[in-house]
């Protein structure tokens, strides 16, 4: 079955959405992310949507759901790379993605997650961003 890959990097999950998602694929991703958090004890989820040419209310809701479900499971979610035209459209549509943290780039998103204490569990205890 067609799936969006969920990669594991330390205690983070990395997801890059590169296809025009149909609704079932979006639902599958929601299930996969929660399952991986539970399997691997991940504490951060980074979702790159820079390839998405539109985010409609369904995909917006999926992103909000993933963020909400992850939080309940103890992981922070950051959505990164939204195209400006997508942001304009999404807000006009009436969705400002409340409860979803966002960042411009993968790098900035990573920083947010490390700051939230979701980085590698070992070796980053002295990270000043966590203090």
């Amino acid at each position, binding site marked *: 079955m067609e799936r969006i890959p969920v990669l594991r990097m330390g205690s983070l999950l990395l997801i890059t959405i590169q296809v*025009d998602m*149909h*609704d079932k694929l979006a639902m599958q991703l929601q299930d996969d992310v929660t399952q991986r958090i539970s399997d691997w004890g991940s504490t951060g989820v980074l979702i790159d949507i820079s390839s998405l040419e*539109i985010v409609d209310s*369904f995909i917006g809701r999926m992103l909000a759901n993933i963020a909400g479900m992850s939080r309940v499971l103890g992981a922070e979610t950051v959505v990164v790379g939204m195209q400006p035209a997508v942001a304009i459209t999404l807000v006009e*549509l009436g969705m400002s993605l409340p409860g979803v943290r966002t960042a411009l780039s993968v790098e900035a998103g990573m920083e947010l997650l490390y700051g939230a204490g979701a980085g590698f569990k070992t070796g980053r205890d002295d990270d000043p961003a966590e203090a």
Partner: protein
Amino acid sequence: MRARDLKREGTMTQPRRETLPLKTSNDVVFARQKVRQWAIELHFGLVDQTKLVTAASELARNALDHGKGGQMVIEQVTNGARAGLKLIFEDQGPGIPNIEMALKDGYSTGTGMGLGLGGSKRLVNEFSVESTPGKGTRVTVVRWK
């Protein structure tokens, strides 16, 4: 093929029109790709393209989820020198009993966020809904370049 025809004939010839089925969630993906392709051919700006494609996605999903499937008609329209795209979404579903209510943000009978109709109205220049309970719904939108 169509793009080539369009170029050869210019944009002032008989209007182009195409009908696409909306029976599965893959059809919704195909419908928005088609709208994108036409918007690009008409040289819509990126934000305009994105708004129209997003509206199409919402309305196509409405026809599928609430109208039990239907079809989308895409048509090139002109108003003087202005070019635009008209999209018509038709279903033979249960219809909308109270259109005014359905256009309000947050109104939803399904599992959505209730942004579909009201939200897509804000993304286009012209918007009309005709619905007959028990017969079906037709939503027509136009976005001008």
